[in-house]
């Protein structure tokens, strides 16, 4: 029996009962389509999350103060509340190898006002390098520079949300550079408007006002309170991030005179850790979705087995005849297995197309950008062929094992 004959026979057998074949295929179509669509959605969610984490900056490390504690059993002020990071720590960190950029931050919430409108938002004192570290792009004007920081100039760069809050919904399309705003009743000049970045986790940079770090420490932190709320570090490369994190930890421990690392008065947030944590969550989620879809695929496979068993019974005399005219067990086995695999393969092809279409629809709704990966398509084909073999095996074996005499006599 040649491959060509096998294809002919399979086509003839499946087209002999189109409705039954069609319904059986439908079971596989639904299974495969849901696997494709759900993994695409899962993959899309994963990409969305890692993209938004990466938009925070590249190779980013954040040093944050530890919890403020009073001696003994006093109340903890919560992580980040301690005043342990100083501008001189920032300068020292800049000397660590593979650190390409450093920016200290002094952040606090203040009332921002212009004539006729006001808002309350985070005012963040930063260095000029902050723009590079945090991937900030400008819509108007330019970002802060270190000269402004050293000369304590009262200039500000504002996020798009702040702009619309202060000047109305069309503010971003008008020129805001040179306008004056009041921060905590001090007059600042707007020198730049940042491009809209979109939400990135809990905080949005769109709803922030940036001023020079020196200015912030001078006018808002006040005398004897020269502490930073965060130090942002950009490592030279992704590979060097762990080394930078270790070196900075060691440096700060020695600078703060702490010998036991578990009692550190600061903590370092590694962007890479964040990405891998988030993607491990989403990939678990994707696996879960795929598993649920996989169940429907198994149900489809049982449909195949059911149809093939019915086929074997209905075509008992045909099997008897084929055996009488010289078909071997292997011939019969191959023929029935080929029918089952053909059903799942057709189902798999339609299912992949349908799943792809469903992913496009989901993307079109804008909730998540679903992404169909070539692995999931290959996997779907592999799984559908495997289902054909697994669920076609038993019926095919039954057909092959039939005694030709009994099969010919079957009524």
């Amino acid at each position, binding site marked *: *029996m*040649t491959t*060509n*004959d096998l294809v002919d*026979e399979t086509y*003839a057998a499946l087209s*002999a009962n189109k409705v039954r074949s069609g319904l059986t295929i439908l079971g596989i179509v639904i299974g495969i389509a849901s696997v494709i669509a759900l993994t695409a959605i899962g993959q899309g969610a994963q990409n969305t999350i890692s993209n938004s984490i990466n938009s925070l900056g590249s190779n980013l490390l954040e040093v944050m103060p530890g919890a403020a504690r009073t001696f003994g059993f006093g109340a903890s002020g919560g992580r980040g509340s301690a005043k342990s990071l100083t501008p001189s720590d920032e300068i020292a960190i800049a000397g660590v190898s593979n650190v390409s950029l450093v920016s200290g931050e002094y952040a606090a919430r203040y009332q921002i006002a212009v004539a006729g409108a006001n808002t309350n938002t985070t005012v963040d004192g930063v260095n000029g390098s902050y723009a590079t570290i945090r991937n900030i792009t400008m819509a108007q004007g330019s970002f802060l520079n270190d000269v402004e920081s050293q000369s304590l100039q009262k200039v500000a760069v504002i996020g798009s949300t702040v702009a619309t809050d202060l000047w109305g919904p069309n503010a971003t399309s008008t020129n805001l550079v040179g306008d004056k705003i009041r921060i905590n009743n001090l007059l600042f000049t707007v020198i730049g408007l940042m491009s809209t970045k979109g939400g990135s986790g809990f905080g949005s940079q769109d709803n922030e006002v940036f001023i020079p770090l020196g200015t912030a420490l001078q006018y808002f932190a006040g005398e004897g309170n020269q502490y930073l709320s965060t130090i942002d570090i950009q490592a030279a490369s992704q590979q060097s991030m762990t080394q930078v994190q270790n070196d900075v930890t060691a440096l700060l421990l020695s600078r703060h005179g702490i010998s036991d690392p578990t009692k550190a008065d600061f903590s370092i947030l590694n962007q890479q850790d964040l990405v891998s944590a988030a993607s491990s969550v989403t990939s678990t989620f994707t696996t879960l979705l795929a598993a649920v879809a996989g169940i429907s695929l198994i149900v489809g496979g049982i449909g195949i087995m059911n149809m093939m068993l019915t086929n074997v019974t209905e075509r008992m*005399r*045909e099997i*008897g*005849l*084929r*055996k*009488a*005219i*010289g*078909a*071997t*067990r*292997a*011939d019969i086995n191959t023929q029935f297995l080929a029918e089952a695999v053909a059903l799942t393969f057709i189902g798999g092809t339609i299912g992949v197309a349908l799943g792809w279409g469903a992913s496009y629809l989901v993307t079109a709704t804008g909730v998540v950008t679903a992404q169909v990966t070539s692995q999931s398509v290959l996997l779907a084909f592999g799984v559908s062929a495997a289902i054909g073999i697994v669920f076609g095996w038993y019926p095919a074996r039954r057909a092959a094992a039939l005694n*030709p*005499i009994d099969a*010919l006599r079957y009524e």
Partner: protein
Amino acid sequence: MIELSDITKTYGEGQEAYTALKGISFTIREGEFVSIMGPSGSGKSTLMHIIGCLDTPSSGTYVLEDRDVSTMTDDELAEVRKDKIGFVFQAFNLLPRTTVLRNVMLPLVYANVPEEERERRARAALVSAGLSEDHFSHLSNQLSGGQIQRVAIARALVNDPALILADEPTGNLDSKTSLVVLGTLQKLNRAHGRTIVLITHEPDIAEHADRLIRLRDGRVVADEKNPTPRDATQETKLYDGTDESVTNKLS
């Protein structure tokens, strides 16, 4: 060509055991037309299965064309059936909703005959079986009983087997159509030298063969030459002209 010596066949074991064949021995030479007849329960179906290599005997030897087939495995038997034996069944057993040509070509599929040769051989077999050319591409369920059985005969012929084994080939046909089918078998034997074994329980069907083997209770009770075989072609002519409608159906 066929040598059966002391063939027995027992079904079941112990108390339940039932012996269908109790020592059958005979020889069939190439080119013979033999009828095996007997009432139901005589063991003729069991014997047909053994001669047709669908089953193996419990004891005794069966030599088909110098090969001992009595101890072969299932797949070896399938090989022998493919090359040596053409079956004609009472129930026809054509594939439904399949064309005449495809039905006849089916054995060639398993025999690995090249595709371009299959149709040529199938057409030749159909012509030998006496089916007219305009029916070749009809579906099997569009044919009359006589035509169907001639397609089945063509299918038995197409592999050029050593032996054609016809199991009650006229059992589902009326008398007139039966004669046409018997005529076809006689012609294949006389004109083409085919070896034919016809299994039947009807004496007037069996009498078309040149030799009659009678079975009763699993034994051969008679094995004799038929000095005056009936001629199906002559008998068909007696019908001709008396019932035109039947004649038309047969053509």
